[in-house]
C-alpha cells in the first residue's frame, strides 16, 4: 500500500510562510549548535556570539532542549544564568 502523504500532496500545497518559518528555525538552530560545539554557554553568550536576540535564543534553545538535542548544565556563580550544552548521548 502506498503512503497517504502522496495522496494529500495532490490536493494541498505548503504555504510559503510555513516554509520561511521552518528555514528561520533551522538557521537559528544551526547557530546555537555551532556555538555550543565549543562548550557549554549561557543564553546571553550564545546570543552575543550568534548576533541573534537573546529572547529568540531562549525560545529556540528551550525547544531544542525539549527534544533532547540540548541539555542543561551548571548555574553560574552569581546564580543568574544556566549554561547549556549539546546532548552528545542522543
Amino acid at each position, binding site marked *: 500500500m502506498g503512503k*497517504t502523504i502522496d495522496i494529500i500532496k495532490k490536493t494541498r500545497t505548503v504555504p510559503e510562510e510555513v516554509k520561511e518559518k521552518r528555514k528561520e528555525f533551522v538557521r537559528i538552530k544551526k547557530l546555537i549548535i555551532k556555538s555550543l560545539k565549543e562548550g557549554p554557554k549561557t543564553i546571553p553568550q550564545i546570543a552575543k556570539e550568534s548576533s541573534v536576540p537573546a529572547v529568540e535564543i531562549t*525560545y529556540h534553545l*528551550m525547544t531544542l532542549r525539549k527534544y533532547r538535542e540540548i541539555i542543561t548544565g551548571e548555574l553560574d556563580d552569581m546564580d543568574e*544564568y544556566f549554561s547549556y550544552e549539546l546532548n552528545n548521548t542522543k
Partner: protein
Amino acid sequence: MQEENKNREFDVLVIGGGIAGQESSLNLANMGLEVLLVEKDYSIGGKMIHLSKVFPTLDCSACIATPKISETARHPNITIFTYSEVKDIEKSGKKYIARVIKKPRYVKEELCSGCQECEFVCPVYVPDQYQYDLVGRKAVYVPFSLANPRVAAIDIDNCILCGACEKVCPTEAIDFTMEAEEIEIRFKAVIIATGFNLFDAHNKPQYGFGKFKNVVHSMQMERQLVPTRPFNAVLRPSDGKMPDNIAYVLCTGSRDKSVGNPLCSQVCCMYSIKQAQLLMGALPLADVTIYYINIRAFGKGFCEFYQQSKTMGVEFVKGKVAQITETENDNLIVRYEDIFEGKVKEAEHDLVVLAVGALPNPDVPDMFKNEKVELGEFKYVKQVDRFACPARTSMEGVFVSGTAAVPLDIPDSILSAGAASSEVNSYIKKLGI
C-alpha cells in the same frame, strides 16, 4: 468504530471536557445514563490539567485531575469525541438532534501508541500552545504529556508534507487521507460545560504584553511552575536569567470596564498568591510583589492562605498599575498609584506577571438552531433560577455547568457540575421517554 457512532442516541450530550464537563458526565454515567462528551481540543482535561498546584491546599493539580480524566475516559456509559465541535443543536419533539463535526487529526486513534517517534523526526517547529508559546513543538505532536487520549495529531496548517512521520510510525497510524466527519446525535438533554476564555493580555496595551519580553501572563507562569515546564527552571524569557524581583499585576482584564469586563474573575487573587508561594520555594532569594485593588480571599482557608503568603515574605501593595515600561536591560518599571499613601510611584522588577481574568466563552449561543440560549448581563450563560435550580437555562432540557455560567474556582465548578447532573437526571425522569 466511527461508523457505529453515526446516528447514535444518547441520554445526555455534554459539551466541554474540562473539570465541570467530566464531573457532570461521570455523575450521569454513574446514574446509568448514556453520555456523549464532546471536547473541541485533542484531549479532555480543560484548563485544570495544565495547572501546577491548587489553592489553598497546594495539592498537585494533575494528581487530582488525572484520575478523574482516566475514570471519564474508561467509563462504559461515556463516549468521548475529542477534537470535535457541535455544529448545531435542534429541538425535535421531546428530544434534541445535534450535528457534531469530528475534525481529522490525521492519526488513527485506535492505532497510535503515543510513542512520539513521529514527533522526533518531524522537522517543523511552531509555538506550543499548551506551553503558551514559551517553547516550540513539532507539526506532528502528542499535545501534552498527560493528554487523554495520548494520541498524536498533525497540525496540517504547519505541516510541510515531508512524510517523515508516516515513514517512521511503527503502527502505521498516520493517515493523511482523513477528512472531517459529520455525525448526527439524538439526545434528551444537554449540558453546556464550555468553560471560560482567558483574557487576552494584548488588550491591555499599557502593560506591554507581547511588546516587552519579560511581561508574561499568569498561565505562562503557571506552566513555568509545573514539572513538565517549558524551561529547565523559572526563567525570564528575554535572556534565560533566573528572576529575583517579580511583580504580579492583579485584575488584568477583570473588574475593568475599559476592556468591557467589570466582573471579578474569582480566582486571580488566589492563584497569584499560590504562584507567589511556589515562586518563593523555587527562587528562595527572589522578592515577589503583588499589586492589587482588593484581595478577595473569600473561600474556605483562603484568608489563612493569604496571611501565610505574607509571613513567607510576599509583599502586597494596594495600588492599581497604570503603566509598565521597559528599561535597557529588559527590566520593567511598574507605575502605580499607592492607594494607602495617595501617591503615584514607580518600582523596578525583572519579571512581571499579569494575572489575567476570565471571560465568557462566546461560542455558546450560536450552537442552537431556531432558538438561542439566553445570556446574562455579562455574556455568560444565564441561570434563570440561580438559587433554586442553578443549572437551568432559558431553554428546556439545556443545562449549564461550571464556568460557562459564571467565573468559579475548581471546587465550585465541581459543585456546579453536581447540581447540573442531578437536575438533568430529574429532567430526564420527568420526560418519561
